[in-house]
C-alpha cells in the first residue's frame, strides 16, 4: 500500500506528460489536405511551411531533437546573434544574481532599521507604498537614460524588483521578534549589536528568507522581459531573436529552460530557508 502511495504521484505525472505529448503529436501530424490559413500568417512563415505537408508547429520529435542539439553543445559562441542556450542562460543568471545580491545588501540592513524603529517605519512607509507597485520595466527607460548601459540597466531593473519583498519581509520579521527573547537579552545586559546578530537576526531569518525566495522568483520573471527590451545577450534576448528567426523549436526549448532554471532557483532558496527555520 505504502509503496503504491510513494510511487502513485510520480507515475501519474509521467502518464500526464505522456498524454500531453501524445495529444501534441497527434495535432502536429503532417496534413494531407491543403490547409486554409490566415494569409498574413502564411506570408510571415512562408507559404510552404503554412500549407505544405508538414505543420509549422514542431512535433514532439522535432522538439526532442532540438533539445538534444542544445544539450550536446550548450556553450558554443558564433558571434553576437548565435550563442548556445547555456551561455545565454548564464548571462541571465549572472544579471539576476548581481541585481538580487545588491538588493539584498540594501534591503536587509534597511529592513532591519525599519523593523527596529517605528519612526523610521512611518517615515519610509509612504515611499515604499508608492514605489512598490511600479512595474520594474517602467524603470527601464529611466535606467537606460541615466546609466547609459544596457547591461547595467537590466541589473538595475532586477535590483528594483527584488528589493521590495526582501525589504518588507525583513522589516516585518524584525518587528515581530518575540518580546520575551528581547527581554532575555536585556536581562543578560547584551549590547545592541550582539542582540541584533544573536537574537533578532536568527529570530527573523525565516521571514527574511521567505522574502528572499519571493524576490528571486520575481527577478527571474522580470529578467526575460528586461532582456527582450535591452537586447544583446541573455535568455530573454535569445527568445526574441529566435522569434525573429521564426524558430519555434528554439523558442520552446528556451521556454522549457527558463522554467527549469526558475524551478532550480526556487528549490535552492527553499533549501536555504529550511536551513534557518526552527521548529517552535
Amino acid at each position, binding site marked *: 500500500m505504502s509503496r503504491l502511495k510513494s510511487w502513485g504521484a510520480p507515475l501519474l505525472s509521467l502518464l500526464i506528460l505522456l498524454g500531453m505529448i501524445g495529444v501534441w503529436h497527434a495535432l502536429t501530424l503532417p496534413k494531407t489536405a491543403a490547409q486554409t490559413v490566415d494569409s498574413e500568417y502564411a506570408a510571415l512563415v512562408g507559404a510552404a511551411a503554412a500549407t505544405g505537408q508538414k505543420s509549422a508547429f514542431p512535433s514532439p520529435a522535432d522538439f526532442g531533437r532540438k533539445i538534444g542539439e542544445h544539450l550536446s553543445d550548450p556553450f558554443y559562441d558564433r558571434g553576437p546573434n548565435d550563442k548556445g542556450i547555456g551561455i545565454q542562460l548564464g548571462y541571465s543568471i549572472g544579471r539576476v544574481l548581481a541585481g538580487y545580491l545588491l538588493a539584498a545588501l540594501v534591503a536587509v540592513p534597511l529592513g532591519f532599521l525599519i523593523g527596529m524603529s517605528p519612526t523610521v517605519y512611518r517615515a519610509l512607509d509612504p515611499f515604499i507604498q508608492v514605489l512598490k507597485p511600479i512595474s520594474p520595466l517602467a524603470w527601464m527607460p529611466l535606467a537606460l537614460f541615466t546609466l547609459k548601459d544596457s547591461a547595467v540597466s537590466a541589473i538595475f531593473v532586477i535590483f528594483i524588483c527584488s528589493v521590495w519583498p526582501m525589504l518588507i519581509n525583513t522589516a516585518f520579521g524584525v518587528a515581530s521578534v518575540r518580546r520575551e527573547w528581547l527581554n*532575555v537579552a*536585556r*536581562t543578560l*545586559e547584551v549590547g545592541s549589536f550582539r542582540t541584533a546578530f544573536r537574537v533578532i537576526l*536568527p*529570530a527573523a531569518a525565516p521571514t527574511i528568507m521567505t522574502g528572499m525566495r519571493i524576490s528571486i522568483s520575481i527577478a527571474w520573471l522580470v529578467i526575460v522581459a528586461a532582456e527582450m527590451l535591452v537586447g544583446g545577450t541573455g535568455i530573454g534576448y535569445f527568445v526574441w531573436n529566435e522569434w525573429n528567426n521564426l524558430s519555434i523549436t528554439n523558442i520552446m526549448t528556451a521556454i522549457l529552460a527558463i522554467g527549469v532554471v526558475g524551478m532550480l532557483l526556487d528549490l535552492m532558496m527553499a533549501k536555504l530557508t529550511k536551513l534557518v527555520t*526552527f*521548529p517552535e
Partner: protein
Amino acid sequence: MTEPLIRIEGISKKFTGRDGTETTVFENLHFSVDPGEFVCLIGHSGCGKTTILNVLSGLDQTSSGYVFVGGREVNGPSLDRAVIFQSHALMPWLTVMGNIAFAVSSRWPEWDKDKVRAHCQQYIDLVNLTGSEKKRPAELSGGMKQRVGIARALSIQPKMLLMDEPFSALDALTRGVLQEEVLRICAETRQTVFMITHDVDEAILLADKIVLMTNGPYAKIAEIVVNTMPRSRTRHDLHKHPHYYRIRNHLIDFLVDRSKAFAGDAVNHDPRHPPLVTPGLDPAEAAASPAGKPLVAVK
C-alpha cells in the same frame, strides 16, 4: 540587622489606556527581601504581580517610588538579577547548551569556548538535563524547557532569582518534581529568590515569607505571612506538620474573601510596614515568637 538585598519603597504603577484614562495598578508598596530569603508573592490575576517583577528585573519602570538592590537604585536590567520567565523564553534556534551558553558568555565575555561549555555543563547537570545538551527546545517537554530556563538563570550566578509563575504551565506531577528541585538547589546555593505564584501549596513549600497582595486596581500589600515550618520540609511531609493547615487556611481565606474586601479592614493598616503575621503558630506560640511581632519592631 542585615541590610535587605531588595528594598522597595512606595512604588506605584499607572498605565494610560488608549482612551487616555489612567488606571493605577498598585500604589505605595513597601517591602524588602533579605539575602538568602525565599519570598513568594500571591495575589489574584491582574493585581500587578508581573508588573512588580518586571520592575524588580529592570524591564519596566515604576510611576513613582524606588527600588534598591544591594543598596543601589535599580535603573535597568542587570546580570545580578536573573529572571525565569513563565513562558521559559528559550530561543528555539539554539540547543539547550546554546541557550545557556548565550547567557554565560554574556556574563563572562572574556571566557573561551571550553570554559563556557564546562560551566554550562555544570548547570545542565544541576537541573538533571545531562544527555539533552544538543536538543532544541522543540524537542523538550514543558518541564524540561523550564529546567533549561532555571539552568540559564542560575548559570550567570546572580545575586538573586526572579521567577514569574515558573511552574504554572506544567502538569501537577512535573510541577511537584521541579518544585522540589528548586527547593534543593536554593538550599544548596543559599540563593535569594523572589517568586510569583498563585498556588498556595507551592508558596508554603518554597517560601520563607509570603507577601499577600489585594486585588487591583489600587492593589496593596495586605500582610506578609511568615512561614514558620522548618526549612527541611518536603512535598510529602508538608501536610503532616501542624502549621501547614493553619497557614494554608489563612492564605485561602485571604484569597477567597479578604483580598477583595481589604479596604474595609485597613483602618490600622500602615502601607509602609505591612503586618508580619504567623498564622502557623497557635496563639501561645505566637506570643513567644519574635516573628509574631509587627515589622515596626524590626525596623
